[in-house]
């Protein structure tokens, strides 16, 4: 597996004495840690500061309260939980569907030989390098039209945003998954075929269970990507109850930076914790997926 080489760093910490030749390494690491920690410290501290505004913030914690957290859940104008729910629904639906559909395409490209395969692969490669939001003006006009016929998947709806995301993540996911599937030994499906399995059976009974961990990682990457997506979401979701966390928090803090700072910090922290936990616990696989190209060169 490609990623084992990367993660082996840090696995074995040797109890060597701190040599003077290594001093610069520690100084550099601590300097970067200070840089890294600074905003994280600020957001944690602000989230517990009862004044809740940027104006009275200080660098040293003076008071402690849960007020900012309470404000998130008791404010009609700030449907924080709805935003979180929208983000989770959107990101999970996109991750699951795009990986499910993408895996089938990747399987066909990786395991089958058919006319137009090479052309299809080249087209896929070309399409997946363009972020879908580059065509944002066209997407907007298109969805505006779709809205006139099918309001539930048109402009302003989560359903419409989902299908745009699905289209956008299809290329990347299919391409990424094809790389993974190529590395699953051919002998396995050949053996199954000799035992009389048809192509759909090979796919569902042999390949799918084998690829499940890889599919999960790809789905997770897709999930994180969608959770972070801002351009299309801000363009699409104008209704306050349809917003994702990204758009909701941006509009909330952007309107009155000073006053809403505390609840914003609390909201960010709350939404970040599950993602950071997920990321750190699965970092081995995520980093492997993200640095795919690096080692293959």
């Amino acid at each position: 597996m490609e990623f084992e080489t990367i993660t082996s760093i840090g696995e074995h910490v040797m109890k060597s004495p701190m040599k003077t030749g290594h001093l610069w390494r520690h100084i550099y690491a601590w300097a970067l840690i200070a840089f890294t920690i600074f905003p994280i410290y600020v957001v944690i501290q602000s989230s517990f500061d009862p004044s809740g505004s940027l104006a009275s913030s200080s660098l040293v914690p003076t008071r402690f309260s849960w007020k900012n957290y309470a404000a998130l859940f008791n404010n009609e104008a700030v449907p924080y939980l709805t935003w979180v729910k929208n983000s989770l629904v959107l990101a999970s639906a996109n991750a699951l569907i795009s990986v499910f559909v993408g895996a089938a395409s990747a399987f066909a490209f990786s395991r089958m030989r058919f006319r137009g395969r090479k052309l299809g692969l080249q087209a896929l490669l070309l399409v997946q390098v363009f972020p879908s939001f580059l065509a944002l003006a066209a997407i907007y006009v298109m969805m505006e039209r779709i809205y006139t016929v099918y309001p539930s998947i048109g402009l302003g709806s989560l359903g419409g945003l989902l299908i745009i995301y699905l289209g956008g993540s299809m290329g990347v996911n299919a391409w990424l998954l094809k790389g993974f599937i190529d590395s699953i030994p051919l002998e396995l499906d050949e053996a199954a075929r000799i035992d009389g399995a048809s192509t759909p059976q090979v796919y569902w009974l042999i390949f799918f269970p084998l690829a499940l961990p890889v599919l999960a990682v790809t789905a997770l990457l897709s999930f994180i990507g969608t959770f972070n997506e801002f351009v299309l979401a801000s363009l699409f979701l104008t209704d306050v109850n349809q917003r994702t966390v990204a758009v909701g928090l941006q509009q909330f803090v952007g309107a009155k930076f000073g006053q809403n700072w505390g609840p914003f910090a609390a909201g960010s922290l709350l939404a970040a914790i599950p993602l950071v936990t997920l990321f750190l616990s699965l970092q081995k696989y995520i980093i492997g997926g993200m640095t795919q190209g690096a080692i293959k060169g």
Partner: protein
Amino acid sequence: MIRFAGFTGTPALLLKMAVIAISDAILVSMLFAALAKDQNAMAGVIAAILLIINFVYFSKRTMPFKFLAPGIILLITFVVVPVIYTVLMSGFTYQTGNEISKKDALIQLIDSGITADAENTSFDTVIGKVDGNLAALATNQTTGEVGIATEKSYTPLSSEQFTRNEYGVAETANGFVRLSDTEAADADSALSTIKFPLGNGYFLSPQGLDVAVRVTQSLVYDEASDTIKNLIEGTTFKDNNRGNFANIENPDQKLEPGWRAYNNFENYLNLFRDPVVRGPFLKVFVWTFIFAITTVIMMFGVGLLLAIAMDKKIRFRRFYRSILILPYAIPSFMTILIWAGMFNRQYGAVNLLLGHQVDWLNSAILAKLIILVVNLWLGFPYFYLISSGALQAIPAELEEAASIDGASPRQIMQRIKMPLLLQILAPLLIASFAFNFNNFNIVYLLTGGGPTNVLAGETAGATDILITYTYKTAFGSTQQNLGLACAISMIMFIIVGALSMWSLRRSRVLENM
């Protein structure tokens, strides 16, 4: 021994039938909805999808496409079609004032192409109904003549047919039923578009419920010559092939609204020709490149040095690592917003730390600087991870051989490891450049593209990159120019596409398919 049970025989067939039946039912109902709204292009796309699905899943010779069809359909409908749409829109005048079709624009022009008559004749009116049709009981303010105007005709009334109130205004008439208050409230907005014909080319145009004026159609469309004539001023307006009717003698005098019209790549030409468009575009174009190159170099430099520092088994390495990849784990839109708050002039944490009130976001240079710094914060962990991965991938034998030959650790790093490392990481550096070239979030959420000198008429801010500028061009608060935005999108497509193709050719991915 594996037994291939499941997904065979009748249950599998039934499942397949059910899924296809449901998707067919949904698509057919969508098809009819599109046809009912006269959206023929949309109906065509849906019909094509419907045919493809049914052909692919019922034919026996389409096995690969049974796997490919859903992905291909999504990709084509929501990625390829928008790109084609972008190409089309980029060739059109499509902006505020030119958003509708020519047919709709003509209707609006003729509807609004009316002028009060020479005497400014006004009427006091009562709005009501005659035989169930909307009608106005009108009293001429100058002559006191009274008549009933309907959408079909005008009937003068003789004095026994109506009664006047104390101001001399006709209030009731035979066969005329006044609108109730609720009906009147509903009719109020509809009245602004209604014109009651008075004969001889004159109309009664209600100005609210109580007053109306006599107007005449001043703009007349002549279909044969595709011109609009202003009968009162005697001027002629001709289709200027750019989406407007323009005065023949004075082409700068255009009739509003216009329509979206093919304009011969004027959007592209204007990017280089028209100083109003060219100025901000060039500024943004240059900064986009500077930003993308500088930020990749900074992130790579800091990340690589960290990878080298952590390449030896030093104490606390695991601890350092788990802290230092945090920026990569936290959702980036949040940290960007947090940094934006921290750079607040009055209360931000950065100024508290410095003890000065530096106005970070209102200075072009400082704003550019903090974009680079914050992006460094977000990006160095990724480069640390890929650099240390690549360092590990370099065979240890190379290092051993070099040190036996008498090379110092520094020489080994500079002469052997670095060139190899750069070769391994080149595709990722290019990909990172492409990503940052379109890094909407960092610019939009941190500085909003600003500072922008609006008083000096600037449309682009100091930190705007092409993608945020496209966003502002297409969806700005005052002037929206979708055609121009699409032209800029096309230029970005070409840059990103060319860069990626070059990178792929280098890495020979294309040959190994």
